[in-house]
């Protein structure tokens, strides 16, 4: 006997003792058992009824069992039956209507729940999650399915942590397993010679206290962690769930629905084996003389032809409509209705689809995840506040009335190894450090283009030639210039926003043959406020298209006047692969990215650089937080897909 609080070890030879305990008080034990070449859930009288030594091999549309694999009891993974069979039966009488033969009067009698007391053994983590989802769907709202609730309350749950997985498993992606976390009374993890047992409820603790055996050793507990971790590793992360709800709902018009419908038989297997599908129909059965009518709740499926039918017609007449309904409900609208995904990643719909439609494949094809943005890590010369690298001011070149480009020579070469779009923190005596984008990297120096906007930047601009300036960096993410290989590149800059984009132009022009056409659209306040004016001309001579526009015209200006989007409005950028880098005031970037999207540039190839208050520059001080991001560390360059609707949202 072991203490209630401990982790117990139950030798395999004593598993019968657990079954006996579960049967106390007249409970029936239900667990996996092999029948007709399948594993079904049924009454378990002895350990011999459990699938000892059996293993399953699953693939889309394929399920095979084989025995003789030693004496492990729970090496099979999921069969086609789920536990909803027992707490939400396929056919359940809900009431009876009687017509009196004597006077024709009618009486209704709802069925009172009368569940048998069951104990489930072998419930996997994904199944526990499914029970939790049903608790919300059927018993967590305004109206409750009384029969479900009674059955659920009457059931004891003995979970088993998975030490094997099937090819259809994706609990890891759905966040439901393979670790058993909650919803169980007891949980077993099978090792070579027995089970490590933990309690998950007070009922479980009482059982555990009466279980024969001993406390588990630290070594056994470590083996449990290792075995479950190995299962997790074997499953991997097959479904990208980040943003899945929105990605899916954006694809209601995907051509893929029709393609998958060509394969789908609408056989309803996926919904029958799904542990969370809960749609039912009410069926009325009558005896021959019509005196007794029995009302039953019967499992139905959104794949059935009559499921969405009304007198006037069928709302989902096509198979593609029904597949879309099922998939979007399970993975998207379920979240809106019940605050959780409707999928637990058990993989049954994959294995038991007769034509092998793999929901993981369909999700990836219909709602592909945004391409991950590759972020090469550049080790900064000095990262943490308090440290800095000394640079010497070699030259200062005025750009406009209030802006100059400083040539800084570092003794530490790592400062010169940054990416286009990265920034440095500038340390001056007497001022808090502030971020400035690098506007050019050269072999022995770097350039910072600085606008005098206040005391600190004024002090920087007033540093005498030969003066020393402390820098930390390069920091943050850069423009992903490698993603531009083979593509047309659109660079849109507003005002001082051209400075962090100049290293992009440098890189593109240095290896011009590797990229498509390059367009720079540059908006400035007035002609006199333009940066790098002589270089703009030189870039155009080297084959870039350079367009400039000003908000306010000025003397001698015969060029474009207006907002920078005017330069892009008429363009078709969707017919060739195009990538865009945009930097300027946020409102300008909002208008620009909107026009670029309309012109055909996809959001995952639209990059912006954000400005936020930064103090540490390395994601520790918290000033630059924006939603899930530290702009200094995770940005300042982001793809539009990364930012989602945070981009330009007020007050974030």
């Amino acid at each position, binding site marked *: 006997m072991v203490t209630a609080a401990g982790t117990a070890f139950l030798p395999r030879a004593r598993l019968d003792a657990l079954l006996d305990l579960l049967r106390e008080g007249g409970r029936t034990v239900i667990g996996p058992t092999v029948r007709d070449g399948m594993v079904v859930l049924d009454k378990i009288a002895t350990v011999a009824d459990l699938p000892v030594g059996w293993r399953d091999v699953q693939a889309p549309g394929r399920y095979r069992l084989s025995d003789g694999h030693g004496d492990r009891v729970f090496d099979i993974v999921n069969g086609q039956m789920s536990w909803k069979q027992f707490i939400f039966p396929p056919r359940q009488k809900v009431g009876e209507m009687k017509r009196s033969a004597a006077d024709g009067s009618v009486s209704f009698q709802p069925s009172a729940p009368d569940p048998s007391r069951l104990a489930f053994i072998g419930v996997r983590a994904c199944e526990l999650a499914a029970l939790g989802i049903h608790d919300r769907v059927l018993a967590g709202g305004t109206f409750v399915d009384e029969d479900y609730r009674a059955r659920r309350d009457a059931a004891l749950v003995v979970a088993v942590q998975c030490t094997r997985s099937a090819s259809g498993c994706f609990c890891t992606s759905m966040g439901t397993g393979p670790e058993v976390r909650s919803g169980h009374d007891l949980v077993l993890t099978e090792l070579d010679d027995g089970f490590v047992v933990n309690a998950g409820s007070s009922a479980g603790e009482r059982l555990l206290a009466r279980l024969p055996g001993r406390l588990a050793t630290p070594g056994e507990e470590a083996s449990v962690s290792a075995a479950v971790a190995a299962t997790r590793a074997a499953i991997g992360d097959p479904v990208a769930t980040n943003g899945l709800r929105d990605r899916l709902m954006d694809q209601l018009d995907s051509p893929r629905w029709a393609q998958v419908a060509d394969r789908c038989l609408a056989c309803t297997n996926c919904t029958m084996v799904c542990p969370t599908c809960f749609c039912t129909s009410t069926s009325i059965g009558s005896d021959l003389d019509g005196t007794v009518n029995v009302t039953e709740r019967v499992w139905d499926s959104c794949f059935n032809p009559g499921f969405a039918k009304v007198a006037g017609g069928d709302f989902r007449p096509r198979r593609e409509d029904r597949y879309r309904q099922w998939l979007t409900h399970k993975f998207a609208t379920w979240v809106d209705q019940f605050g959780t995904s409707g999928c637990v990643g058990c993989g049954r719909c994959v294995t038991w689809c007769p034509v092998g439609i793999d929901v993981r494949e369909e999700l990836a094809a219909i709602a592909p995840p945004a391409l991950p943005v590759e972020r090469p890590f550049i080790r900064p010369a000095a990262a943490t506040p308090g440290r800095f690298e000394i640079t010497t001011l070699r030259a200062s070149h005025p750009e406009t009335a209030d802006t100059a480009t400083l040539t800084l020579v570092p003794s530490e070469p790592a400062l010169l190894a940054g990416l286009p779009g990265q920034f440095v923190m500038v340390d001056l005596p007497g001022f808090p450090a502030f971020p400035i984008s690098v506007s050019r990297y050269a072999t022995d120096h770097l350039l910072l283009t600085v606008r005098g*906007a206040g005391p600190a930047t004024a002090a920087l601009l007033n540093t005498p030639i030969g003066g020393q300036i402390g820098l930390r960096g390069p920091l943050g993410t850069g423009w992903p210039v490698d993603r531009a290989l083979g593509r047309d590149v659109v660079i849109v800059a507003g005002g001082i926003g051209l400075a962090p984009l100049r290293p992009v132009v440098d890189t593109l022009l240095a290896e011009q043959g590797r990229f498509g056409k390059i367009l720079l659209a540059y908006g400035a306040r007035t002609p006199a406020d333009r940066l790098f004016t002589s270089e703009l001309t030189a870039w155009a001579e080297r084959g870039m298209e350079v367009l400039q526009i000003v908000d306010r015209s000025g003397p001698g200006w015969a060029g*474009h006047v207006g907002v920078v989007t005017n330069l892009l*409005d008429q363009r078709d950028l969707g017919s060739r692969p195009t990538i865009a880098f945009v930097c300027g005031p946020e409102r*300008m970037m909002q208008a620009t990215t909107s026009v670029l999207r309309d012109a055909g540039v996809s959001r995952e190839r639209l990059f912006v650089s954000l400005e936020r208050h930064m103090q540490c520059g390395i994601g520790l001080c918290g000033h630059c937080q924006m939603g899930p991001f530290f702009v200094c560390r995770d940005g300042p360059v982001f793809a539009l897909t990364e930012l989602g609707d945070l981009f330009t949202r007020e007050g974030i």
Partner: protein
Amino acid sequence: MALPGAAARWHGWVVTAGGSLATRLGSTWFGAGLSSHARERLAALAELREVDPGAVLLREGADTERFGVLLRGLLALRVAVAGRGTATLMTVEPGDIFGWSAAVPPYRATSTVVALETSEVLLLEAGALRGLLRDDEALALTLYPRLLESVSRRLTATRTQLLDLYARDREYEPW
């Protein structure tokens, strides 16, 4: 069509059949948003002109004598301010229009329209445009919303310019 006494040269007719004019109109931002019926009717009455830099197409405050779609080149919209000379408020990019006031009372130009480059324009005489809008309901149904959209885009752009987004922001001072 009577042309204003601009110093710059106005070319003679660029002879083009109506059908291909409608096609060219359809390839512009403005024309792409019209019905094919509207494009055909407009093209039938329109002239294709090439103008030199400096050519004045409309004068601020004067009757709007013509409505046009810029096919190629660049036009400036200018207003005169006493004591401050003439300011270019915005430029018209290819695909966009000028002379929308030809359709809106009091039919007077809100700015002076000057070609900054050699430009190709599709011109419609103001009276002819108003006649079309009056007599052809199907055309008016597609042309009015498009005109309003053009004016609205210009209004939005002007507001953005007024925001002076590139102006220097004050540095954040933590002390």
